[in-house]
């Protein structure tokens, strides 16, 4: 019954299309009850269920969700590029053409020329053997016999549109930075002047400042061309900064559809609220980060209940009884929350906590320095065999200190030398010059240390790495991984008991010891990695982008866990990140690195509130605003 009712309501919302598109008639893209499933037809498991939305001409729709929400699959189903083994059903109409099960010929006429797809990873989506110009030449409209010089001018014009110099046409992808590659890819996607651009996480792999530039570019091109845009992202702030409307997806279902400003100010679903709250603010310290407990379920396990019920603090038995349909809750808004009428005031109240005046960060008692780095230098050489020998200076005379019990944030972009410092501290690389003191041991050259010193150094410093998907050995069970570390500690008599204790410490059940990493979610894996790091009871914990690869809801959990460890054991921390809002929550002191040099250092609050160095200011300005900017209000109309 519920699905029929849902369909009826979906239909109702379609009869009242919103904003700009209203005037230009029917929607450009009309998706109705789109389903994506995997497996043989009889035993198909749903991955995306009953997704319906419209995109009007000139409108930007943000599809927001964590991994497993089905947002990428939705986009791929729309352009007919689902991975093998997956099939879509329902209706996708683009300017009157039915696209589900369309013939190849229909697709060829549409893809690239009228609908275009921009992918996430700028490092793999360009052909390494083709110049940027060749990529563009291939995708420019074929009609007419362009002369060579005309084509060259056209390519230069296209590159200029995405903010690149004409010379870039001659360059190969490996000669371009990530941001430049993403711009080339954007120019290629726009080459045939599509009416709809679908961008799948276009800025996720980029640095903060580059991300801001690419988003700005997307926005200005969309406006000047009146192009429609579907932006898929896991980051609400990114969606808010570009889109008119936002659709929140979770475990294959749409939970809320809303104009951007309304969603940011007044979320109409507990999950939307959770996403807003889980995003740590950059403007002030929050005493306790709000996490959504648990992790995203598989779409097929929540087919007959509210997908979010198991993690929702407002859930009632009726939420688990049937799948709630999307119901209109305001002008141009729908929500799939059954209890919204009762709990809406509570949601508003919870959101207002986010902007509460800042709680002062806990007072800091810093002991003697546990690690001191003096004038550290490191240059990397690429071999002469691979063409021209190249030198990259990673560290150019860096000095810093970390006090006992202090949490230091190390901030900078890709290539600024953050990770090189971490690896030097861990003895994974040997610096060219300079000195590293670790609680009295000179570890600048790990190989020269004797066995006892090396073991001592390993006890003092431990690390949590960025990517929990590769930092755990996939062949070993969690228990084996942890027991191996405990055995090294030497003072453990009952390693099984101790393993259970460790897992408990990071908030995982003891039964996880039998599992392999592949059976764990990203957040859970990162907890295991943390357990492994603290098993040796280190005095300094290096966290190298520990939440960069995690979903928003898992991020807050892991950050809160790290804070707890920091407080409980008075562990010093070196927190490496590019995310200033994370550093605001985690660090007592900030060190800003730029091209292998320390350009600014000071108290977290001082540096973030009144930055001195222009680079620090640029970093802070690059953060997408959490509030919907007034300029992109939903009733904005474009030609």
């Amino acid at each position, binding site marked *: 019954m519920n699905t029929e009712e849902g369909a009826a309501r979906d239909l109702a919302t379609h009869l009242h299309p919103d904003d700009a598109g209203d005037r230009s008639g029917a929607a450009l893209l009309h998706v109705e009850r789109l389903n994506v499933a995997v497996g043989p037809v009889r035993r198909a498991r749903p991955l995306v269920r009953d997704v319906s939305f419209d995109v009007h001409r000139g409108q930007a729709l943000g599809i927001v969700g964590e991994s497993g929400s089905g947002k990428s699959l939705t986009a791929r189903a729309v352009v007919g590029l689902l*991975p093998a083994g997956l099939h879509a059903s329902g209706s996708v109409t683009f300017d009157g053409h039915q696209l589900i099960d369309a013939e190849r010929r229909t697709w060829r006429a549409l893809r690239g020329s009228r609908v275009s797809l921009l992918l996430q990873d700028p490092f793999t989506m360009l052909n390494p053997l083709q110049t940027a110009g060749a990529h563009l030449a291939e995708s420019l409209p074929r009609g007419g016999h362009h002369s060579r010089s005309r084509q060259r001018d056209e390519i230069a014009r296209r590159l200029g549109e995405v903010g690149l110099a004409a010379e870039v046409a001659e360059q190969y992808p490996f000669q371009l930075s990530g941001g430049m590659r993403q711009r080339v890819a954007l120019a290629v996607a726009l080459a045939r002047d599509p009416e709809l651009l679908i961008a799948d996480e276009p800025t996720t792999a980029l640095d903060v400042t580059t991300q801001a530039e690419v988003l700005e570019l997307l926005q200005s091109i969309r406006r000047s061309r009146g192009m429609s845009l579907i932006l898929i992202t896991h980051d609400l702030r990114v969606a808010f900064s570009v889109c008119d409307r936002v659709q929140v997806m979770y475990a294959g279902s749409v939970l809320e559809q809303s104009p951007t400003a309304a969603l940011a100010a007044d979320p109409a679903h507990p999950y939307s609220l959770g996403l807003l709250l889980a995003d740590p603010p950059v403007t002030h310290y929050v005493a306790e980060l709000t996490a959504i407990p648990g992790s995203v379920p598989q779409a097929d396990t929540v087919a007959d209940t509210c997908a979010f019920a198991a993690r929702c603090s407002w859930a009632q038995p009726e939420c688990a009884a049937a799948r709630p349909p999307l119901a209109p809750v305001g002008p141009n808004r729908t929500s799939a929350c059954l209890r919204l009428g009762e709990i809406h005031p509570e949601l508003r109240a919870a959101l207002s906590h986010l902007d509460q005046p800042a709680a002062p960060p806990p007072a800091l008692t810093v002991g003697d320095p546990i690690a001191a780095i003096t004038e550290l230098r490191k240059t990397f050489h690429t071999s002469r065999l691979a063409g021209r020998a190249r030198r990259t200076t990673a560290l150019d005379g860096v000095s810093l200190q970390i006090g006992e019990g202090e949490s230091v944030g190390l901030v900078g972009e890709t290539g600024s030398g953050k990770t090189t410092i971490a690896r030097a501290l861990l003895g994974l690389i040997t610096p060219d010059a300079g000195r590293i003191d670790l609680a009295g041991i000179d570890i600048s050259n790990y190989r020269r240390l004797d066995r006892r010193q090396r073991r001592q150094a390993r006890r003092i410093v431990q690390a949590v790495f960025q990517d929990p998907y590769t930092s755990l050995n996939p062949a070993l069970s969690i228990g084996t991984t942890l027991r191996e570390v405990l055995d090294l500690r030497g003072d453990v008599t009952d390693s099984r008991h101790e393993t259970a204790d460790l897992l408990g410490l990071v908030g995982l059940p003891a039964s996880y010891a039998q599992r392999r990493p592949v059976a764990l979610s990203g957040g859970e894996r990162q907890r295991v990695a943390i357990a492994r790091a603290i098993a040796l009871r280190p005095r300094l914990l290096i966290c190298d982008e520990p939440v960069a690869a995690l979903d928003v809801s898992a991020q807050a959990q892991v950050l809160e866990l790290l804070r707890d460890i920091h407080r409980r054991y008075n562990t010093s921390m070196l927190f490496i990140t590019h995310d200033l809002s994370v550093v605001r929550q985690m660090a007592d002191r900030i060190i800003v690195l730029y091209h292998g040099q320390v350009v600014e250092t000071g108290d977290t609050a001082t540096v973030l509130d009144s930055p001195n160095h222009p680079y620090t200011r640029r970093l802070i300005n690059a953060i997408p605003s959490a509030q919907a900017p007034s300029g992109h209000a939903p009733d904005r109309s474009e030609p």
Partner: protein
Amino acid sequence: MTSDVRSDQAEGAAIDHLQRVPVVAVICGLVLLAVLVCVVAGGWLAPQDPSAQNPLLSAMAPGHGHLLGTDELGRDVLSRLLSGARSSVVGPLVVAAGCLLIGATLGMAGAYFGGVVDTAVNRLADMVYALPALLIAIVVLGVVGGGYWITVAVLLLLSLPYEIRLCRSAAMVEVRLPYVDAARTIGISAWRIIFRHVLPNILPTVVATFLLDFVGALVGFAALSYLGLGVPPSSPSWGTTLAEGQSLITQNPWLSIAPAVLIIVTASSATLLGDWGHELLAHAGTQR
């Protein structure tokens, strides 16, 4: 994110994979099992004494209680092939096992330590690679005078570089992953990282190359026996039987056909099984 698309894709492939019943793998497994039974109990299974001569029944076609006929000296071909399984298969097995132990260790050590160790391992592999394998074997065995275990040693040395290179390149991928860094950070010793952390992750490659090495050595052994090197001519083996049959191909063609078929079937089964095992193990990592 693309990660969910990728995992769904992997899942689709895995489902696809499970639906395909590995009939070929089952058959290959049964063939190899039968060969192994002959290796262990070939002499006992043989219907007649493999070295009992009967000049009256020399080079007979099948019949007269001899299922595959007799050879020049009137010995039962079937019995000779069954009892010859041991000398034909044990040698190649030892070669493959030796390659596995030495080659995988050297390959992983080269990948893990890099630098001088890697260069040394690589140059060793290059050097052996440059040698024309079978020709060298013939020369060495001709000079030294053959002998079963010397043949094993020569073949082992000559098939090492393949194992080293494959294991090294598989290990190179693994040692760059953060879990190896994590293990180093914790303070686990180098060899423990190599055998406990790297080895399980390159197992698909190791298993597949083990079977390929076995096949190479099986054929190499047969070839050398055919040339009268390796296995002493008097003792039964598939290669020597094949060589003897050549001159009697008109009288008893089975004397040549049967050992040839045995070699081909055993080698193909091992290759296909290695292929399937590789795929199976490679998939195992992506399943819960």
